[in-house]
């Protein structure tokens, strides 16, 4: 998704205003092929004089083919300017455009391009070599009589990925406001980042200005926009700071919108990342991704969806945790007081398998459309497996789920803990064949998880832990209303599902938060 947008983006306003801003702020622009400041004020088409204009490059056979035509036009009455993107020597009188400024300004995507410029504006253009069009545009007939009738052009150098990248970096670098940390000559980058306390324990990708600039191409948001106020230090966190941490986490630029949304959602009062961080419980932020973006960025919702091996899954969750650590100042042993923690606190992110699901996806259940991309944040402990290889009816399987769900946190604790039930394809098939909707499953689980107070009060069953004595006469639900999320993910083989336990639920602790991903 990012590529086309990044191109238009950089080729237009951002690139130009970048140059302007760089000068105003006194930040020295990195010298580069496109750093001529005068360009910032030019309107498209006004960069060249009126008359005929042709943009060529030597490495294009069609451009070489039309050299006699260019000579012919040069001898004519109308002014002609030929710009070459690579080598000016192959056409007499060609003007050097190896820095591509004219090509970008004229929005050239193919060479050769023939244009007519009138009163500073492009009034006509044709690409490649097509005699009738060249004749019509120039008014010269016959033109190139010895040439074939038609030859396609070649891609303009402005379309080269490395050119796009260089422009992007040049444009963005002066806009980055983060403090520059210059390492010593003998310093190892990875060790230096460990020494500065930036790491979660695993090596980080060094956040150079170039990498951060490329990362920022993944969003249309301005680097200086504030994304959220991040606990525990309650610091305003900019898009740029998120991008820096996303680079360190190993994200690709097209993941950035998901990371930004995850940071926003985590820092809402409802999700309460402060509490999730500070608690002695196992909780960490789980990011569930729904909608088209999950597939677009190559997330895993299938085999080993909750495990290792997929870059997007692995780095999005990690980037969120690095933002909490580095921007928010939340570190284990400081504000993070977890007794044991859990490995998902390095990173915990997966996509729902929507295509293979018998049910509506999580974000649709939570009020968004199927076509919307969204993240849902959940205060998660670790993953526990649920096995049932024998159930062939939804009734039987629901009973297995209920029995296992009852153990979340403690079999004698009710209401205060939420959970996510991740139903695998083979288990989902049982519900599909039985005609159970997700609402039906939730309702049946609700019924199965009504627990008599006498079983769960303190001391019952010889277990001190439990609910206060006052609950003895009541029947209580294991989960509060809205406390059980159900999603579909996993590989095609295995009659296993997963339960991901939560933390103090609702307004007391953390509410699951679903937020639309904005680019």
């Amino acid at each position, binding site marked *: 998704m990012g590529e086309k947008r990044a191109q238009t983006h950089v080729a237009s306003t951002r690139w130009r205003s970048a140059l302007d801003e760089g000068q105003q702020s006194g930040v020295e622009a990195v010298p580069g092929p496109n750093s001529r400041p005068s360009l910032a004020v030019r309107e498209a088409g006004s960069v060249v004089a009126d008359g005929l204009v042709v943009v060529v490059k030597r490495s294009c056979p069609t451009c070489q083919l039309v050299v006699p035509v260019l000579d012919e036009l040069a001898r004519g009455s109308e002014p002609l300017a030929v710009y070459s993107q690579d080598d000016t020597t192959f056409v007499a009188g060609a003007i050097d455009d190896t820095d591509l400024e004219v090509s970008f300004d004229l929005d050239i995507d193919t060479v050769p391009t023939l244009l007519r410029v009138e009163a500073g504006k492009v009034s006509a253009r044709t690409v490649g070599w097509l005699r009738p069009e060249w004749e019509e545009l120039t008014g010269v007939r016959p033109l190139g009589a010895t040439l074939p009738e038609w030859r396609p052009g070649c891609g303009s150098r402005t379309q080269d990925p490395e050119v796009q990248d260089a422009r992007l970096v040049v444009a963005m670098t002066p806009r*980055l406001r*983060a*403090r*520059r*940390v*210059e*390492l*010593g*000559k003998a*310093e190892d*980058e990875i060790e*230096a*980042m460990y020494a500065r306390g*930036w790491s979660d324990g695993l090596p980080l990708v*060094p*956040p*150079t*200005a170039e990498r*951060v600039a490329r990362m920022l191409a993944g969003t249309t948001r301005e680097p200086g926009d504030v994304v959220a106020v*991040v606990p*525990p*230090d309650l*610091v305003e*966190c900019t898009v*740029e*700071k998120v991008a*820096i*941490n996303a680079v*360190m986490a190993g994200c690709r630029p097209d993941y950035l919108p998901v990371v930004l949304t995850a940071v926003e959602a985590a820092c809402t*009062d409802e999700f*309460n990342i*402060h*509490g999730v961080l*500070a*608690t002695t419980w196992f909780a960490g932020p789980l990011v569930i991704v729904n909608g088209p973006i999950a597939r677009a960025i190559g997330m895993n919702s299938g085999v080993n969806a909750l495990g290792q091996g997929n870059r997007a899954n692995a780095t999005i969750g990690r980037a969120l945790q*690095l933002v909490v650590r*580095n*921007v*928010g*100042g939340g570190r284990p042993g400081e504000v993070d007081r977890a007794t044991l923690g859990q490995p998902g606190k390095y990173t915990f992110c997966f996509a729902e398998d929507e295509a293979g699901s018998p049910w509506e996806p999580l974000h649709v259940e939570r009020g968004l459309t199927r076509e919307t991309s969204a993240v849902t944040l959940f205060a998660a402990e670790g993953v526990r497996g649920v096995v049932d290889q024998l159930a062939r009816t939804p009734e039987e399987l629901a009973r297995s789920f209920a029995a296992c769900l009852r153990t979340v946190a403690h079999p004698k604790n009710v209401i205060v803990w939420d959970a996510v039930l991740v139903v695998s394809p083979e288990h989902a098939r049982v519900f599909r064949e039985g005609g159970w909707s997700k609402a039906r499953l939730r309702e049946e689980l609700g019924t199965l998880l009504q627990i008599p107070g006498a079983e769960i009060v303190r001391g019952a069953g010889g277990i001190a832990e439990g609910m206060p004595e006052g609950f003895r006469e009541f029947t209580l639900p294991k989960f509060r209303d809205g406390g059980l999320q159900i999603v579909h993910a996993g590989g095609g083989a295995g009659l296993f599902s997963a339960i991901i336990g939560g933390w*103090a639920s609702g*307004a*007391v*602790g*953390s509410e699951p938060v679903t937020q639309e991903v904005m680019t």
Partner: protein
Amino acid sequence: MTPTTLLDPTSERDPTTRERTARPASLEGKVVGLLNISKPRGDVFLDRIEELLTQRGMQVERYSKPTFTKPAPADLRHEIASKCDVVIEALAD
């Protein structure tokens, strides 16, 4: 090799260091705030502390946070700071 320049991923804050308020030599004549962070049984602990303090003739003010999972709201912190000389906080479970 050119030295690498990295962008700082942190908040770049430069926290100011503040001195702790001096500990009072005695609680005589002091107002003692008792803050329950709203964990289970914190009230049991604070009820007993209140009993012991009032027996000694001290003035006690009771407070509680809306939930133990979030920082105390600014208004509550301000009220405690303006009314009390010392505060005892109950972390419990």
